[in-house]
C-alpha cells in the first residue's frame, strides 16, 4: 500500500477520486431536490458520443466530451423547460442516440477499440494522466465555485420554481447553470467511475446522507463526505486484487453505505420518536 502511494499514477488516481467524491454529491443534492436524479445518466449517455468524437478527430476525448455533454445538457434542459409528457420520449431518444452514436463513432475511429470504449463506459482511473488531472481539477474548481456562488439561488429554484420567479431570480439562466454544471461533473467522473455509473455518485451519497440530516446544507455537506469516502475507499479496495474494477467498487461501496444508513437512520429516528 505504502509503495503504491508513491507511484505517480496512483497519486493521480487518488486525487481524481477525491475530486469526484467532492463534486458529484454537491451537484447531486440540487439535482435530486429538483427531481432530476436521472439527468446525470442522460448526460453520461450523450457524453459517450463526445468521447468517440475525440478519438475520431484526434482531439483529446475529455475536451470533446465537455463540448458534447454541455450541448446535451442544454438540449435536455430546453426539453424539460418546455416540459410535458412528450419531453420524456424526447429525452429517451437523445440518450439512445448518445450511446449508439458513441459506439459507432468509436468503431470507425482510428485507434478506437472495445477496450477503449469500456474504459470510458466503466471508468479506468488507473489511466488518468497528468493532463487529464489538470482538466479534472479545473472542472472541479468550476463546479464547486458555481455551488458556492449560486447555491442560495439554486436552493430556491430547486425548492419551488414559481417562488424563484416571484423573487426575481433568473430562472432560465439558473436552470441552465444546473444542467451545465451537471454536464461538467459527468466529465469529471467519467474517468473514475465511467459514464454508465456517473450518476450513482451524484445520487447515492445524497440518498445516504438524508437518512441522518434535517437540513439542506447539512445533507450536502454529509453527502460530499460520503462521496469522498466511497470514491477513495473504492479505489483503495481495488488495489487488493487486480481483478477488482475501481469504478464498480466505488459504486458498490456507496450502495453498501446507503443500505447501512437506511437501517441506522431508521433506528435513530425510532429512538428519537420514542
Amino acid at each position, binding site marked *: 500500500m505504502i509503495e503504491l502511494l508513491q507511484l505517480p499514477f496512483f497519486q493521480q488516481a487518488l486525487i481524481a477520486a477525491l475530486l469526484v467524491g467532492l463534486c458529484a454529491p454537491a451537484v447531486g443534492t440540487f439535482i435530486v431536490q429538483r*427531481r432530476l436524479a436521472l439527468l446525470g445518466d442522460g448526460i453520461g449517455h450523450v457524453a459517450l458520443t463526445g468521447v468517440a468524437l475525440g478519438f475520431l478527430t484526434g482531439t483529446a476525448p475529455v475536451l470533446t466530451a465537455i463540448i458534447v455533454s454541455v450541448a446535451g445538457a442544454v438540449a435536455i434542459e430546453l426539453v424539460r423547460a418546455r416540459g410535458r409528457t412528450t419531453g420524456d420520449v424526447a429525452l429517451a431518444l437523445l440518450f439512445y442516440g448518445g450511446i449508439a452514436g458513441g459506439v459507432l463513432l468509436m468503431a470507425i475511429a482510428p485507434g478506437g477499440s472495445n477496450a477503449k470504449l469500456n474504459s470510458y463506459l466503466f471508468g479506468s482511473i488507473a489511466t488518468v494522466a497528468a493532463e487529464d488531472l489538470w482538466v479534472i481539477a479545473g472542472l472541479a474548481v468550476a463546479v464547486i465555485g458555481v455551488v458556492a456562488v449560486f447555491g442560495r439561488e439554486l436552493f*430556491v429554484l430547486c425548492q419551488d420554481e414559481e417562488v424563484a420567479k416571484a423573487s*426575481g431570480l433568473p430562472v432560465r439562466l439558473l436552470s441552465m447553470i444546473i444542467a451545465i454544471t451537471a454536464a461538467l461533473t459527468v466529465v469529471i467522473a467519467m474517468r473514475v467511475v465511467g459514464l454508465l455509473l456517473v450518476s450513482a455518485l451524484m445520487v447515492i451519497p445524497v440518498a445516504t446522507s438524508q437518512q441522518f440530516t434535517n437540513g439542506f446544507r447539512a445533507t450536502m455537506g454529509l453527502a460530499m463526505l460520503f462521496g469522498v469516502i466511497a470514491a477513495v475507499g473504492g479505489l483503495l479496495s481495488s488495489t487488493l486484487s487486480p481483478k477488482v474494477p475501481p469504478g464498480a467498487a466505488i459504486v458498490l461501496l456507496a450502495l453498501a453505505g446507503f443500505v447501512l444508513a437506511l437501517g441506522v437512520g431508521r433506528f435513530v429516528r425510532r429512538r428519537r420518536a420514542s
Partner: protein
Amino acid sequence: MLLNQPVFAMTGGQVTLDRRPVLRGVDLTVCPGEVVAVLGANGSGKSTLVRALLGLMPLSGGSTLLYGTPPARFRDWQRVGYVPQRLQVGGGVPATVREVVASGRIARQRRFRFTDAADRAAVERALEAVGLSDRAGDRAQELSGGQQQRVLIARALAGDPDTYVMDEPTAGVDAESQRLLADTLAALVEGGKTIVLVAHELGPLEPLITRGVVVRDGVIAHDGRPPAPEGDCARPGHEHLHPHSGRPEESGPLESWQVKP
C-alpha cells in the same frame, strides 16, 4: 415613483391553458394598503388570476402591470412576497424550517453577499411571528399542513415586502394556525401592507378584508366590499357557515353587468 401607483393593474387579462381559456378578460386594479380576498369555487380561475398578476402565468391577451411595470421587465421583486399554495417537498432532500424561511431573503440577498445581522434578525422575527421559533431546526417536510403553511408565510415575511400575494393560505389549515395567520395578517395590515389572498373560506380573516373579488368561470363576477359579519358571525371564533359566492340571491342583482360566457 408615484406615491399612489397601483400595485397591480390588469386590463383585459386572458390566460389560456392547454387551449382552454382560464381567464377570459379580467380588469383588476389593486391599490397600496388594500386587503383583497379573491374568492371563487374550485377551478374558477382565482389562483390563476393571482399568479398572472405576478407574471407567473403568461397572458394570452390583455396586459398587466406590477407597480407600473410589466412583470417581465419588473426588477423590484423585494417589494413582493409570494406565498404558494403548498410547500414543495421536491425530490426529498430535507430542508430545515429555518433554511426555507431564510430563503425568503433571496430578493434582498443576492450573489456575493454574505448573510448579515439584518438577514438573521429578519428570519428570527418571521419565525417568531408564525410561532415556529422552537421548530426552526426541524425538517420543514415533517410539519403538519397548517405549520407548513406558516413556514411559507414566514418565508414571505422574512423578505419584508410591501405586498403579499397568498394562494389559499387558509386551505387545509387547522383552527390554531388560522388564528395565528389572522393575527399575523392583522399586524401586516396595520403596517400598511397590501395583501391579495386567494381563499375558499375566509374564516377568522374576514374582519381584515377590505375588498372581495369573486371570480367565476374566468371573469370577475363581483368586486366590492365583502358582506360585513353580523349577528352570530361577528362573534370571534364563530362557525363559518355561509358561503360568499355561488348563492343565487347574492349574485342575482349583479346579473346585469356580469360577463356572459
